[in-house]
């Protein structure tokens, strides 16, 4: 965009790795990075279910490629609402992970029924299997979780809000008036304009869309274009969200 300090970034803030029991085994760092670049993405966030153990590996795999990788998590709250928590640094993600681990029931993952949860390195090679059952609700309410992520400097985006599984609007009926989340994510099934028409409680909330990729080909399938005034970060993404749809971002 000549004459403007803004640049358009293609962003997909919802991507799973093999640490999510429901993700395909191909979701390893080098392939995720390759696919994201191939799809023309500039920024991705790694968001496994109640887990962040593979964020460093994906960030390392992306080093030097021009792809920005933000460390994140898809938190399942006690209301059974999925919420994207996105940070700038691995340290923030690890601090958040320690809090979330304290809220999870101490159950073992049944890999045979739910799928295995793999920790891998930047090359995608096996490091360990995460034995803890991750996809269970954490004992934290969505408002408290939002305050905690914000206190750490992160971004809070309830995921696929219109979906009938773990979607905020389905579980909680409408957007809670006191929820201070940064945006709402709709799935590929719904355009933001349709979301505003169908769900009046979203009126004042920025609505974005991400892929929620559990397999490679889906990465970037749905994305949001952000017009950022600075390099990609929680702060620059939030600034664009606050400028509103059209100005700060749009869903192509």
């Amino acid at each position: 965009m000549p004459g403007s300090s803004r640049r358009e970034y293609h962003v997909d803030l919802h991507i799973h790795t093999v640490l999510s029991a429901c993700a395909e085994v191909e979701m390893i760092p080098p392939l995720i990075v390759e696919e994201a670049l191939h799809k023309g993405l500039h920024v991705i966030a790694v968001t496994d279910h109640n887990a962040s153990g593979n964020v460093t590996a994906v960030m390392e795999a992306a080093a030097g490629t021009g792809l920005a990788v933000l460390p994140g998590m898809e938190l399942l709250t006690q209301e059974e609402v999925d919420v994207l928590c996105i940070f700038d640094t691995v340290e923030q993600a690890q601090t958040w992970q320690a809090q979330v681990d304290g809220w999870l029931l101490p159950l073992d993952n049944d890999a045979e029924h739910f799928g295995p949860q793999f920790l891998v390195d930047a090359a995608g090679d096996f490091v360990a299997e995460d034995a803890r059952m991750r996809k269970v609700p954490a004992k934290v309410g969505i408002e408290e979780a939002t305050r905690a992520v914000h206190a750490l400097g992160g971004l809070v985006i309830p995921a696929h809000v219109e979906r009938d599984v773990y979607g905020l609007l389905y579980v909680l009926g409408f957007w809670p008036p006191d929820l201070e989340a940064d945006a709402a994510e709709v799935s590929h099934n719904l355009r933001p304009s349709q979301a505003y028409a169908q769900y009046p409680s979203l009126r004042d909330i920025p609505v974005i869309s991400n892929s929620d990729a559990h397999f490679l080909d889906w990465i970037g399938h749905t994305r949001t274009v952000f017009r950022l005034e600075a390099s990609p970060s929680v702060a620059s993404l939030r600034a664009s969200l606050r400028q509103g749809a059209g100005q700060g971002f749009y869903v192509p």
Partner: protein
Amino acid sequence: MQIGEIVEKLGLTVLVGEDLTAEVTGGYVADLLSCVIAGAKPQDLWVTLQTHVNIVAVASLKEVAGIVVAESAVVPAATLEKAAQQGVVMLSSSQPVYETVKQLVALGL
């Protein structure tokens, strides 16, 4: 049957509610609030494990007689405050949802 009579017979704890004279004519069970919005009827007693503050607005909207939180689930302060503001009766049962509903059915609801 008045809500106060149900409180007494089931040994429920009153979390919020001074006036327990509201008439209960039926019941509804769900934790997904979009289902409650679609399905609950006025004067139902709503049994749930959902404790998010949105339950108060849904109870108000549907004009249910009151909310019974089952299994002694912990109700956040924000929910209790909103219920007090909106005049929504909130009760707590130490029993799971299934047992609570059986007891309501035994009362003739």
